[in-house]
Structures are given as structure tokens and as C-alpha cells.
């Protein structure tokens, strides 16, 4: 290597040597150290990967892919997370062997005499940030089982999947719920069905979802057991420690930070499509001999909003630059709720008018439509009243 000296030559005077030679020696040394460090790190990582493969099994996947409904929480998944309630509590979110939330439906085949209720919809049904017993499907389950004391056994499944629309609920009914022999299906689908139509590029004929290309991390977690284990650990810690109130607050701030805009599209343009979808769901249930209930969407929108209620709204801040004012939001969701009431009377579907029964305040709502435990409690009472009135409750 350049820059080396022998014992026989006098030590070179720094002033006589070209600067690059000294620099070359330093670069040389730095390179050697660099290579050695990289090699050592690679060896250590290889050893750690080997050890991880020998000692640990691969962490179970959080999601599986249903070929017709996309990613869904893996059956048997369970992880701890922090609830959205104040004060937050640590609870275990558990997915049963059928891929739903719920405690009593243990197997696909229905035992004779069992009464099965399925709740379908999006995040306001799933209530992923509340313990099962504080969600309205969970409370309905508890109330019915306490009342009937196992004669008949009542099984409740919460099939809500956050971020999905009415088409998804229809797909869920057809592909996953009908084969499980439901007795009653309850749908809460108003908000996302309406919200989707606010986007300028909404196309009811093409709800396609181009697959995002995998990220480097996706590949790495798939290729390395070590990274997969570390990632699973990080995810679990984040679920346990992250307070999702922060997420809501950042969206609430976003809404206030930018000015309101008039809607770019007619906020009621999705109504005919929504009515047609509701109608089809009602007929699908009717054809299958299953009692069907539509729930109006409880929400915080009202004419006289208190400043703190207004501040709690996430609203509609859309990718195309729209940020809609509360009266516009109210007009849209009210119209969709009215369509639900009309469809119920036309098709003799059970109406659960939760929008009129859940008090519109911050004790019951976290944001526009997501509910607290108290909100869920009010919905559960509304569900029980409606199905009792309709005579669709199981006969002991």
C-alpha cells in the first residue's frame, strides 16, 4: 500500500512529501477500516439471521388476503392496543377463527338452534380502538346472552372493516356471511358510501385498487426472519403505546388549518347509486331468508355546533383540495340517512334509527362519526329496541 515506510529510510519530513501521499495513507486506512466494519456487520447480521431462523418461528401474519375482499385481519390474530376512551385502557383486540371480532362464534358450522347476528360496515362498526365489550356489537351480544341465558345460544360477529364502502359490505355478505347461515344481518354503511362520492374522481363502475408496488421494507421483512421479528415487535409496541387520539387531533388540526371550499361536485350525486346498493342488499338477505336491518349513521353534525364540537370534526379534507363546511357535511349525511329510512319502509327491512337516538355531543362521539363507549352503548340500546319491536329477536 502506498505511504508505507521502511526501517532503513529516515522518516520522511512531512513538508517534503506530496500532501496526497499522507492523504492516501489516511484514505487507505479509512478504507480498510470501512471494509472491515462492513464485513463484520455483515457477518454479525448473518449470524443474527441464522440464530433468528433457528430459535424463532416466523411471526404470524397480521393480515391474510381474501381473494375477493382483499387484505383482512388474520383469523386467530390477537394483539394489545390502547383504547380511544378517556382515560385510555390497554385491551386485547382479538380476531376469531373466522376472521371476525366477537367472542362466541367459534366455528363456521352453526349448531342447531343457535341464533346468529352479523354486523357489517366499516370502522364505525369495527370499533378497533375499543375493547370488544364496549363496542355496540359486543354490548348487543352481552345483552342478548344475559337475557336468553343460552336458550337459544346467541352468537354475534362484528364483520366491520375500516375504510370500506357499501360495495365491500355487499361482498362481505355474499362471500363470507351468507355461508355462515346468519339469522340477522345489521348494516351500518351510510358514511363511507356517501364520503366516497365526494371525491371528484368517484366512479361507481370501477372501484378498482391498483396494487401499490412493494416497498424495500416489504421485501426485507419477507426475506429476513430477523427483520420480520423486529418489525412485529415494533408494531406490537406501537399498538400498545400509541394513543390514537393524536391521529384524530392531527386530522382535526388539518381541517382547521386550511380554508373551507365549496364542494366541487353535487354532494348528493351518489344517492341513486346508494339506494340501488341498499335495495340489492335487502333483496340478497330476503332471498336468503335472513332478517336484514339497516342502521342510520349516527353523527355529530347539527345546526348549532358548539366550538369544541366543531373543533372535534375531521370533516372532509379531500385529495382534490376540497375542505367542506359542516352544513354541507350535514346536508349530505342527512340525505343518505333519509335514503336508508325510505329503503327500510319500502322493503320491510328493520330500521335502526341510531342517528336519531345517539345524543350528538362529545360524550358520545370522538369525531364526526366515530363513537366513544357511551356512543356505542346508545347504539346497542337502539339495536335491541329495533329488533325487539320487529319481533326478530330469537325465540327462547
Amino acid at each position, binding site marked *: *500500500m*502506498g505511504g508505507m515506510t521502511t526501517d532503513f529510510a529516515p522518516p520522511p519530513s512531512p513538508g517534503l512529501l506530496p500532501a496526497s501521499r499522507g492523504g*492516501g495513507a489516511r*484514505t*487507505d486506512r479509512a*478504507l480498510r477500516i470501512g471494509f472491515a466494519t462492513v464485513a463484520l456487520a455483515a457477518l454479525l447480521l448473518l449470524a443474527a439471521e441464522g440464530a433468528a431462523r433457528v430459535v424463532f418461528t416466523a411471526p404470524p*401474519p397480521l*393480515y*391474510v*388476503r*381474501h*381473494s*375477493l*375482499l*382483499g*387484505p*383482512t385481519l*388474520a*383469523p386467530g390474530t390477537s394483539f394489545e392496543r390502547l383504547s380511544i376512551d378517556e382515560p385510555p385502557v390497554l385491551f386485547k383486540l382479538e380476531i376469531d377463527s*373466522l*376472521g371476525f371480532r366477537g367472542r362466541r362464534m367459534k366455528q*363456521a*358450522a352453526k349448531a342447531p338452534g343457535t341464533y346468529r347476528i352479523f354486523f357489517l360496515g366499516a370502522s364505525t362498526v369495527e370499533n378497533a380502538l375499543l375493547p370488544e365489550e364496549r363496542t355496540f356489537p359486543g354490548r348487543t351480544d352481552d345483552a342478548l346472552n344475559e337475557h336468553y341465558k343460552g336458550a337459544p345460544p346467541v352468537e354475534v360477529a362484528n364483520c366491520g372493516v375500516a375504510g370500506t364502502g357499501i*360495495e*365491500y359490505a*355487499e*361482498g362481505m355478505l*355474499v*362471500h*363470507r356471511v*351468507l*355461508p*355462515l347461515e346468519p339469522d340477522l344481518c345489521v348494516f351500518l354503511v351510510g358514511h363511507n358510501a356517501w364520503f366516497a362520492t365526494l371525491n371528484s374522481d368517484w366512479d*361507481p*363502475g*370501477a*372501484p*378498482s*385498487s*391498483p*396494487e*401499490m*408496488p*412493494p*416497498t*424495500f421494507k*416489504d*421485501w426485507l*421483512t*419477507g*426475506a429476513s426472519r430477523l427483520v420480520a421479528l423486529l418489525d412485529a415487535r415494533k408494531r406490537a409496541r406501537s399498538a400498545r403505546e400509541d394513543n390514537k387520539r393524536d391521529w384524530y387531533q392531527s386530522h382535526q388540526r388539518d381541517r382547521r388549518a386550511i380554508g373551507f371550499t365549496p364542494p366541487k361536485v353535487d354532494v348528493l350525486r351518489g344517492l341513486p347509486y346508494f339506494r340501488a346498493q341498499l335495495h*340489492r342488499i335487502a*333483496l*340478497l338477505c330476503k*332471498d*336468503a331468508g335472513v332478517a336484514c336491518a339497516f342502521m342510520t349513521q349516527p353523527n355529530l353534525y347539527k345546526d348549532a355546533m358548539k366550538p369544541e364540537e366543531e373543533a372535534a370534526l375531521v370533516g372532509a379534507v379531500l385529495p382534490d383540495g376540497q375542505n367542506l363546511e359542516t352544513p354541507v357535511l350535514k346536508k349530505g349525511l342527512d340525505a343518505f340517512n333519509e335514503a336508508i329510512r325510505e329503503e327500510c319502509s319500502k322493503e320491510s327491512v328493520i330500521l335502526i334509527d341510531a342517528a336519531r337516538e345517539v345524543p350528538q355531543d362529545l360524550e358520545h362521539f370522538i369525531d364526526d362519526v366515530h363513537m366513544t363507549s357511551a356512543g356505542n352503548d346508545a347504539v346497542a340500546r337502539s339495536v335491541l329496541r329495533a329488533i325487539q319491536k320487529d319481533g326478530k329477536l330469537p325465540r327462547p
Partner: protein
Amino acid sequence: MNRRVKLALVFVGVVVAVLALAEVGARVFGPLPPPPNWESHLLVGFVRAPNYRTNKVAIDTGEPFVYETNALGLRSTTLNAVPKPAGKKRIVFVGGSTTENGDLPHEHTFPGIVEAKLKDRGVEVANAGVPGATTSVALAQLVHRVLPLQPDVVVCLDPVVNDFHESLTSGWDPLLQHMAAAPSPPSFMDWLTGASRLLTLLDTRHREPVNAKEVFARRSREHLKNPPSDPPDDLLLRGVPRFELAQRVMLEVLRDEKIVALVVTEPILVKPVMTKEEDEKVTSAAVPRTDFNLRPETELRALAAYDEVTRRNAEKLGAYVVEGSVVPKDLAHFVDDVHLSTKGNEALAEAILAKVVPLVSKD
């Protein structure tokens, strides 16, 4: 510094710089990547990508042809947009590969033949068949892709062979159908082609059409080299109730929407006594992902049970039935034991036309 190290570093630097330049060049001046042949649909799984075009060779004649989909991802020359023009009638075909006929020119397929015959009567026709589909997939297609097109008639050749095969795989659960295991992790190449425009342009993995002839040949070799092996009776028909449910829901949806439904029972080459040439074309006996190699009489018994469900469902729900047996069981009409040749497609198209012409002629 050692000369070789210097050279190596310079070489690496040049390679990185050239690659970076090529990537920038591809992003700035390169064409948009050609569309893939498949597209993910939120509620249907995978569907043919819109405006996909590729050169293929007809599986029966060996003639080259261009396979293409329209802007809706369907094979059609008449039905190219969602809004239905006033005064037009629409017929949409749903099913699996036996409906799509992806290895025949569109005009040689039974949907294409029906389209050509009815074009002058103001009827728009589209083929929404998806290879590998089960009846549940066909149902999802119907609900989420076909109904928005406001069809007047839907013709369904249910992919019963796919339903039947799937039900024979180990671990199949009729109540958890389509709940796959965790998706396989992406490969390094998957990530790289997603991240680099240059590699996307060079990558042909997802754009090359599958060579059906090779696939058929491989499957029939499997059948010929292995001894016959039938599933036990309790396994043989376990897929029937799930098929019955999916098909019933499909016909109920069509009835509720006041759309005329026409179902086709399975045309199949398999018969109790097969010639050597016919047996060499059998692809459906060696059931994928299982060790079963079905005897003709076993396969016929199973498919007869599925066909019986089709007839029963149709009768109950007011659908028309076209018997697949109108297609003669010989190698002039089949390219393997389930996929039809041009002649087979013509025979089926004739039977379908006999039913649909009076329907679309009504005001």
C-alpha cells in the same frame, strides 16, 4: 491506495452513475410502462387489465392473432363504455377460462360469435370471463363489474371444473373459501421493478401471455404418467353445496335486477370410453395441488352432480338453460377436455343464439 482497489471503486462509481442516468432518462424520456395483463380489483381479485394487447397464436389453428381487452378490461368490440346508449340491449358473458377463450381470436369465441350475429340488431355484447375463476369469483364479477353495465341478458358458463378441483384440495373449507393464507412476500425483483422505471420497462414477467398449449401439455402428461386415483366419496361432492349457494345467489341477484339469466351446463370431452388421442388431451383429470388422477366415470359423476344443481337452480329461479352437451364430444370441438376449439365455440354459440335472439328481439 492500491491500484486495483482504485479501479474497482471507479468501476462501481461509473456503473452507479450510468444506472442513475439511465433511470433518470427512463423517467424523463422513456415511454410509460405498458399495462400489465392483470389488474387488481378491490372486490373481484384479479381481472384483465383495460386496453391490454398482445400477440398470441390460436390454440386450435396455430394462426397468429391479437388478444385485446377494451377500456373496461373486457373482450368486446361493441360494449366499450359503462353508460348504456338509449335503445341498445346488452348481453354479458361471465365465467372462467372456458368463457374467456383467451387462446382464440375474439371472433372465434362463443361470446364473439354471438356479438357478430347480433351487432346489426343493436345488441352490445361483452365477454367478462376470467381464467381460473370459481363460481364465487363469477358472482363477484357479476355484482361489481357486470351489473353497472345494465345488461339485459347475462349468460353464465359457470366454471364448475374450477369449483370441483378447488374442493378436492386439502384443507379446503366451504365456509372459509377464498380466505387464503398470508400473501407470499414480495421478491427482491418485485421491489426493484416497483421502484425503478427502467426495470419496469425491461421487466416482461407480468406481460407475457401464458402459453396455454404448454400448460395443457404439462397437465395431460401428469394425467398420462400417473395411475388413476379417485377421491373418496365424501370428498368427491363436498364442493357442491358451496357451488349451489354461489350460483343461487347469482341467479337471485339477476332475478331481483330483472335481468334475463341463461346458464350453460359444462361442455366436456370426457366420456366413458375415450380414444387414445382423446385421453392424451385430458387436462382436468390430474387435479392441481392434489394426488388425484380421476377416472373418466368419476369425473363425469361429479360434474353431473354440479350440472344437476345448475338445472335445479335455473328452474327454481326462472333462468334459461343451455345444455353443454350440444357440443359434440370429439377433438374437432375441444382443444383439451374442457376448453373449446373454434368449432366447439360455434356449436355453443348456435345453441345460445337460439335462446337469446327471441329475448333481445322483444321490445
